[in-house]
């Protein structure tokens, strides 16, 4: 079984430690997405797995074999880069076949492999073209083809969709997901886009400042974020966070509204951060959060509404048909069951601890 294990992985550039003891196990055939803001160490982690960056401390194991000191080609991996890294002076066929240069196959076998991969990617009729004659999406497909042709145990993707326009990105995202189903190999995908992470991943690894914040399925990280960073990073629009104090059986919000939170006892007077997702707020005349709509952003299916509640900006979603307008007075109700509670000082979730 080919699995990937990162043990206490540390990366330092000089005295600056950019990755702090990363631990992660990825199973065979799993699709794992590393996601986080710029500089969180996700790309560095990927490049260490690929063998493009030295490992300062810790070990990387692929299929039970420590690969720390193995060259990239000996690790049985393939990588797709953000800028495609396909060679402009070679035809698509030669680009895809470049990865087979060292393979011990006859010319016919290599060509058969290239044709097979081109067939899967739907670019058989583009094989003799030069990259300059291809669109961005087609170029990225060539890059994926070059990775596929070697049939590696692990596919590594370094922000492969970031150079594509929004529509193409959605389309390629779907294609990569289908490809994963088809080839069934382990894929590790780096992105800063949480939508990409949510849609593609079997499991998401959320990173920040060189630390892993949370590892979980898309549903887990969405419904049970481990801390306020994950809560705000995953999901768009971001979760509303507000100050509150414990009341024993629930919390009292900063504006005095009391909310009972089932299944959680919070000592009275303890400072907590109360989180609620925009879609869990309902427009309701008896709601506890009342304010004025400052901005309404219609998205068609729904409308994002920014409400000024006693100086706090609260984000809510309203149905698309009869959205409130800027300047409208609105009241929002919420249920304690949808609430996410975090320790104010540490930002850690109170439900998980």
């Amino acid at each position: 079984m080919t699995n990937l294990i990162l043990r206490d992985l540390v990366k330092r550039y000089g005295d600056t430690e950019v990755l702090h003891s990363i631990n992660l196990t990825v199973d065979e055939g799993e699709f794992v997405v590393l996601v986080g803001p710029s500089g969180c160490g996700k790309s560095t982690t990927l490049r260490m797995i690929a063998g493009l960056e030295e490992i300062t401390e810790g070990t990387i194991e692929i299929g039970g074999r420590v690969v720390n000191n193995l060259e990239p080609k000996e690790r049985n991996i393939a990588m797709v880069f953000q800028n495609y890294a396909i060679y402009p002076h070679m035809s698509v066929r030669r680009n895809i076949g470049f990865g087979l240069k060292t393979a011990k196959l006859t010319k016919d076998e290599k060509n058969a492999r290239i044709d097979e991969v081109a067939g899967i990617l739907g670019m058989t009729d583009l094989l003799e073209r030069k990259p300059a004659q291809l669109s961005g999406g087609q170029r990225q497909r060539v890059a994926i083809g070059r990775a596929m042709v070697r049939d590696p145990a692990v596919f590594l993707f370094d922000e492969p969709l970031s150079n594509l326009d929004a529509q193409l990105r959605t389309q390629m995202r779907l294609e990569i997901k289908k490809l994963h189903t088809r080839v069934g190999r382990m894929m590790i995908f780096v992105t800063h886009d949480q939508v990409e992470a949510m849609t593609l991943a079997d499991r998401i690894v959320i990173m920040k400042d060189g630390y892993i914040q949370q590892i979980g399925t898309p549903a887990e990280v969405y419904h049970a974020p481990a801390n306020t960073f994950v809560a705000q990073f995953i999901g768009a629009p971001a979760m509303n966070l507000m100050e509150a104090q414990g009341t024993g059986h629930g919390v009292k919000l900063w504006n005095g509204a009391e909310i009972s939170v089932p299944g959680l006892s919070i000592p009275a007077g303890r400072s907590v951060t109360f989180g609620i997702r925009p879609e869990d707020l309902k427009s309701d005349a008896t709601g506890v959060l009342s304010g004025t709509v400052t901005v309404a952003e219609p998205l068609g299916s729904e409308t994002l509404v920014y409400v000024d509640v006693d100086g706090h900006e609260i984000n809510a979603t309203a149905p698309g048909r009869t959205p409130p307008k800027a300047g409208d007075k609105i009241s929002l109700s919420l249920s304690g069951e949808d609430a996410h509670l975090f320790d104010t000082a540490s930002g850690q979730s109170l439900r998980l601890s």
Partner: protein
Amino acid sequence: MASNPSIHDTIPQEKQPAVTRGGFYGRLSINQKRTLWAWAFLAVPILFYVVIRFYPTGNAMVLSFQEWNLLGDRTWNGVDNYITLFSDPVFWQVFRNTFAYLLIGTPVSLVISFIIAYHLDQVRFMHGTIRALYFVPFMTSAVAMAWVWRWFYQDVPIGLFNNMLASVGIAQIDFLDSTTNALPSILAPAIWAGLGFQIIIFMAGLRAIPRTFYEAAKIDGVSTWTVLWEITLPLLRPTIVFIVVLSSIGFLRIFDHVFNMTTANPGGPLNSTKPLVLMIYQTAFDSFDMGYAAAQTVVLFVILLIVSLIQLRLLKDR
């Protein structure tokens, strides 16, 4: 402004701007104004080129069919200059020398400068200093350099190279006084002088190749040679074309090094180092045979043109 109604009438009313500026300039479209400014700025260099470059070039071509000793009248003599030239054994010797400079100088300097640039690109330690060291010869006066090298080449006990050879017990070499050694001996400092420039250009070309190309190749596990032959060199093609054309023109016009290293005996032993430009110089300013010199210049011009065109054609992107 409205004093000339006939011009005014030709402009359709609806296209007239709300505020019309008077005069010829005010009525031009944005594109016409841009063109006008472009030509205004181009006028100076064009004038310069016409007076300083094109007129003398044309004049030289005319002169190549005339006889002139710089003081007397210019008299027509048809293609006599060319006939003299092509039947002159010295010209053919010079022709061979010129192409020897070109055919040895260009590839040797290209390979050496690429090898240095390729490795210098990977060096981080004292990178700037090392690069500057290679660039210094390019900034140095060719005359000064030629004389220093001339000293290097002298016999024992003066010359550096022969002293070094003598100290390890090897017979001294006639560098500049031998018909076989003189040309390579003069070519060496000429190549060395141009290296700095070529290295800088190569390094800029190397830097322009995205790192991910190499990383992708590393992951594919291809050898360093494959990377060099199939990625680096093809992607350096525009840089190589530039350097080949530029250095070829340089070697075809070689003069300073030859002139200064063989002043006692211009053109080396038995004309073995004499390039075309030196022959032109001697014909013009030693023999004052301006028409003949002009004919030689036209031949050089044609050679430069043909060599450059062939190279551009051969090295162009297929």
